[in-house]
């Protein structure tokens, strides 16, 4: 690897202060630190040794945790395509169809978002942030397979500029970047991200009897009718048995259908200590709790849905594992994390049941709690200050 290092060293003076391409220093720095971890050493005073972690490694851990969801999503897109069009396809063909749909979305998200990052790094003179490694993967995973690519590009640009760089870059943002991208499309181009968009057809057409509805839509449809307690039966009829939803053999956004794959991701995040298990557990707990309460009220069929169904329908698991745990936008105090997660769970189910116009509650619940996370932290921090003050006067 010596010759690579030599090439980089040769270029370095061009980008350093006084060099020809001084403006683009951070672009150089990004590739240099990507190839080689830097040769900087500890200051004269202070710690002389450092932990082996850095932000790049932390972020790549999240990307690794998302891979099961991505791989499953690629296959599922092909599988749903086959099921909806009534074709009998081999596994390889299903995967190929999935790749054809998913890869361009991933590439577009990474390239457009990455370009915006680079432009900002040059203009604002800050290092290119590793945070986009994660955002660039999250955005495709929460898009429906039929999403037009130009919308992916637009959403990525919007999210990076408005949700992140406007606040000063990774670490400073208030809203989760990937969810901002999705929310942007949701409100700007609602027809392309809701309704009959969850299955990729390509040139084929749907078989007779294909409905295209999701479990959430089915549930939302029952909120106006009499309560019969037959929603679960209806789910089973429409191919939304608990097991199917758990495993993810259902139409939906590219990466979020399989609760099992999200759980594998959760295991990686919790095992590596990168994601907060407190937030994950409390989101599931909050959703279950709210589901139970609605069971007791029981005004319509959706309310009567057994609470554990809320865990597997829609994107709750994906949101709880990958979105709610974003350390920058979540609550940052340990106590705050419990409250933050629990409220996300409660709000998700609340939105699902009371607002059929926006069946996917988790996205809005997380964005909403992103805004309130600083308030939660503020109270936890104030309690710490009060303990100190109280001690002083005793």
């Amino acid at each position, binding site marked *: 690897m010596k010759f690579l*290092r030599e090439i980089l060293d040769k270029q370095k003076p061009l980008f350093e202060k006084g060099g020809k391409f001084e403006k683009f220093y951070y672009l150089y720095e990004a590739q240099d630190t990507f190839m*080689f971890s830097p*040769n*900087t050493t500890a200051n004269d005073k202070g*710690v002389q040794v450092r*932990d082996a972690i850095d932000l790049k490694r932390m972020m790549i851990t999240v990307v690794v945790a998302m891979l099961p969801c991505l791989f499953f999503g690629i296959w599922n897109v092909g599988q749903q395509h086959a099921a909806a069009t009534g074709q009998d396809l081999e596994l390889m063909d299903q995967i190929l169809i999935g790749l054809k749909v998913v890869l361009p979305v991933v590439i577009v998200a990474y390239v457009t978002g990455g370009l915006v990052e680079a432009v900002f790094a040059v203009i604002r003179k800050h290092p290119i942030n*590793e945070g986009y490694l994660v955002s660039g993967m999250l955005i495709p995973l929460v898009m429906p397979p039929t999403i037009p690519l130009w919308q992916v590009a637009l959403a990525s640009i919007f999210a990076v500029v408005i949700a992140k760089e406007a606040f000063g870059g990774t670490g*400073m943002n208030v809203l989760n970047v990937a969810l901002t991208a999705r929310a942007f499309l949701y409100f700007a181009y609602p027809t392309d991200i809701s309704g009959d968009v969850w299955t990729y057809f390509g040139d084929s057409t749907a078989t007779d009897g294909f409905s295209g509805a999701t479990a959430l839509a089915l549930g939302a449809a029952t909120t106006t009718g009499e309560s019969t307690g037959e929603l679960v039966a209806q789910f089973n009829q429409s191919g939304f048995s608990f097991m199917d939803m758990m495993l993810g053999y259902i139409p939906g956004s590219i990466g979020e259908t399989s609760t099992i794959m999200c759980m594998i991701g959760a295991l990686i995040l919790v095992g590596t200590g990168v994601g907060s298990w407190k937030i994950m557990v409390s989101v599931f707990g909050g959703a279950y709790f709210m589901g139970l309460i609605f069971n007791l009220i029981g005004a319509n069929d959706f309310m009567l849905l057994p609470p554990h169904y809320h865990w597997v329908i829609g994107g709750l698991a994906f949101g709880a594992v990958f979105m709610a745990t974003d350390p920058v936008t979540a609550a940052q105090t340990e106590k705050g994390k419990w409250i933050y997660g629990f409220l996300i769970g409660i709000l998700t189910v609340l939105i699902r049941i009371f607002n059929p116009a926006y069946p996917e509650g988790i996205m809005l619940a997380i964005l909403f709690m992103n805004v309130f996370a600083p308030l939660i932290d503020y109270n936890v921090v104030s309690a*710490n200050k009060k303990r100190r003050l109280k001690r002083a006067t005793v």
Partner: protein
Amino acid sequence: MSKTIKLTKGLDINMAGKAERKIGESAQPETFVIKPTDFLAITRPKLLVKEGDNVKAGTPLFYDKFSPDIMYVAPVSGEIAEIIRGEKRKILEIRVLADKEIENELYDAKSISDISNLSREDAQKVMLQSGVWPNIIQRPFGIVANPEDTPKSIFVSTFDTHPLAPEYNFIFHRQEQNFQAGIDILSKFTSGTVNVNIDNKGEVAPIFAHISNAEVNKISGKHPAGNVGVQIHHIDPVNKGEIVWTVNPFGVIQIGKLFLTGKYDASKIIAVVGSEVKNPQYFRTFIGASISKFIEDNLNGNHSRFISGNVLTGERISKDGYIGYFDHQVTVIPEGDYYEFLGWMKPTSKKLSIHRAVGLFSFLNGGGKEYVLDTNSRGEPRAFVETGVFESVTPMDILPTYLVKSIMAEDYDDMESLGLLEIIEEDLALCEFVDVSKHDIQSIVRKGLDLLRTS
């Protein structure tokens, strides 16, 4: 009331190059220095000697214009060889070329009963003049104590949990009497109690086993359990407007010795440790010793960093540099100024990490493995992202992230209410070690303390 405290948070950094329990044979260094910069609050040192003067061990070298009673004295007898100045003629070092036989300044020796009858005023006068006073450090701020204050309590931590730290029961072996006399003297200065905190892990060292005139508290846990700041936080926390003093056992012994023998004695045993030292062991020397004699022919590599103190809170010195006033160890580790191809994602179990992110397998090694750590910064500085890690290595009811951010924002109210007055930089040193975003937490903490102190 004596307390038993068990701390669960923290991190023991297990490094290669532990000192063997023996005192090495080595010629005494020729020069010794006193650095005014070792005493944090000194702004205007006024010299009392000039180059060429002859001094005894204990002869005042300088004092601070703002607290003229506290003398800073020569550790050994000899000739003032050189006074090193920096920018704006700031005094950096006062070098003393040592005599073969050390001659001491003498004061009245006292019996144990005399010591108990001594008044605070009389004791204080001798302590200020003789040069033992700078052992007394004040919380908040971690500066040399003001003789006019009466602290609400005094704390002595009798163990050091820093990486490769010297064993106190070895370096203070057989100093029971001096230690007890020092405690007796110190107890005159506080309205409350003297707290002697001992390690609850192993056997109690004989020197600290039978202490009277003080509360003995038992502390157990990983580093920073030995940090006196952490102990104060759990035993008798510093509130706004309150003052607590802390003294290292070395200081207690030095004070005791002064009264029992009438001598200012700057002799100490230091540990020379680290993976780059061939025979890590202890050496007998004096405060401010030049380290070159101890590391000559005793090094493994030739590209090393020499640190006065430990790897968490220490300061880099040169190969022929001098050990700091308050330090009992010199650590030598490899310099880390190398590039590493794809170093940020290469799997490794050799690099220590508290994290378990992909490829970091050091957690599989268990606690018994000794690590060779170098000075590489292992990544680039970034904005705060990860949360909850600082908290896991801070065994105090303090929120490090918020505290550090409040200092960065120079928010005086928040710094104070979030507990900055309770800590000094060493208490958050582990946060700096584990930080994903590579902030210089300790220098930020010091900046905050300076802001509060001078506001």
